[in-house]
């Protein structure tokens, strides 16, 4: 399949083809059953990727702790306390950086401040007061923003400065070779093998439920730290192994002498045995220790 056709199918799935282009592709599909078959697969993959991304975003939101919004009186008090402890220049800077016209001190207290911004502002301004003097302002390096809601360096004495994002150079990972002609799959496997040696085994409070009368013969679901095993798990014992690395934790199932990856899935998916000998060996060691 050439890259152009692949790209066309991508755009077709995203609904980005013009009416003419769409008709042309569909005609081609009618004439070529292999192409039609390919598009069916690509459509399923496209929807599955959507499911995965939606689930990831949803669990991210779900894991957030949402505090009830503070009583309005509380907001005013907080804002007043913040403004009251700052120099006038500091508060003038803040309001100049956002798009409001420069208010008087009295107006500043009235202006509504949303909960997260007030907290962040308080902390940044407090730090700014402690460390910055006018002469130092220019030589100070812009720190990484604590919260992206506040878009400027905390130099309290620069007035009317337009909001600028602090520049954080992207982390360049050196693990892949850009010019390598050979396809390098080392990034594709999860987890990184070197990480396994360093990881500590930690007790996971994952709740497991085995469902034997399910339409699925050997599948699982895993979300919200709950693992549902579908299949015949009554006879043989199983074990959950968690490997924690810097970025995240990975779960594995040990069952009947084999190992299976457990990923976040709300929809039941089959348990796929791990074939990678090195990984299996590491998991065996991990299992033996605990």
């Amino acid at each position, binding site marked *: 399949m050439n*890259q152009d056709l*692949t790209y066309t199918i*991508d755009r077709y*799935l*995203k609904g980005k083809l013009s009416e003419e282009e769409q008709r042309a592709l569909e005609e081609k599909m009618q004439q070529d059953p292999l192409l039609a078959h390919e598009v069916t*697969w690509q459509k*399923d*993959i*496209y*929807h*599955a*990727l*959507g*499911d*995965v*991304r*939606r689930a*990831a*975003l*949803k669990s*991210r*939101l*779900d894991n*957030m702790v*949402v*505090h*009830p*919004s503070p009583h309005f009186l509380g907001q005013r008090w907080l804002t007043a306390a913040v403004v009251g402890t700052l120099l006038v220049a500091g508060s003038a800077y803040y309001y100049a950086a*956002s798009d409001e016209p420069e208010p008087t001190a009295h107006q500043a207290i009235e202006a509504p401040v*949303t*909960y*997260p*911004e007030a907290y962040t502002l308080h902390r940044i301004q407090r730090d700014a007061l402690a460390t910055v003097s006018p002469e130092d302002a220019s030589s100070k390096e812009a720190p990484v923003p604590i*919260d*992206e*809601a506040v878009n400027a360096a905390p130099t309290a004495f620069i007035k009317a400065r337009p909001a600028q994002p602090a520049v954080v150079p*992207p*982390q*360049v*990972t050196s693990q*892949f070779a*850009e010019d390598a002609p050979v*396809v390098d*799959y080392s*990034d*594709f*496997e*999860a987890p990184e093998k070197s990480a396994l040696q360093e990881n500590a085994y930690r007790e996971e409070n994952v709740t497991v439920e085995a469902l034997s009368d399910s*339409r699925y013969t050997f*599948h699982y679901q895993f979300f919200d730290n709950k693992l549902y095993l579908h299949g015949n798990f009554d006879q043989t014992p199983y074990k959950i192994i968690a490997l924690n690395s810097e*970025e*995240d934790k990975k779960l594995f199932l040990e069952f009947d002498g084999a190992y299976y*990856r457990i*990923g976040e*899935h709300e*929809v*039941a*998916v*089959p348990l*796929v045995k791990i074939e990678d000998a090195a990984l299996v060996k590491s998991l065996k060691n991990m299992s033996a220790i605990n």
Partner: protein
Amino acid sequence: MKDSVVIEKISRGDEKALEYLYRKHYRMMTNAILKNNGTEQEAKDVYQDALIVFWQKVTSHQLTLTAKISTYLYSVCLNLWRKELDRKSRLSYEEHDQPEYLNDEAEERKAIIHACINQLGDTCRKILTYYYFDDLSMQDIAKKLGFATTETAKTKKYKCKKRLDNLVKSTYSASDFLD
């Protein structure tokens, strides 16, 4: 943060802006559902789903918002909730003898694909979901994942997609033999 700033950040795939919105409108949106015969959990679910609809429309540049974000979110929430209420009332009228296996083959294909996606590394999974679901530009994907250039992102996406395609096809044909 002003609505326009939030939208700008979201259009680049900034998930912190999503979190900001979630907190900001949580009370208002969940209250709307609670007042409409929803439970706390249902309200939360509908709100999250609505927010993700909004997210995707913005990241894929399909939305030109003329009203406030809260107004838009509110209407999406109510629409989703109305659909859910319809679904619940339909279920209560019909007998519970719906065929469970609506389309075995499609379900199986879906399960295989999910398992294969799960086998991809985090980076691959992110590149592909950002490209296909969020429809972010290669430039934004490169920035989000810390690649040196846009070309790097393009190459990785190509390799990751090939890898996924191969995984899916080999797994599917393998399972064919088992039947």
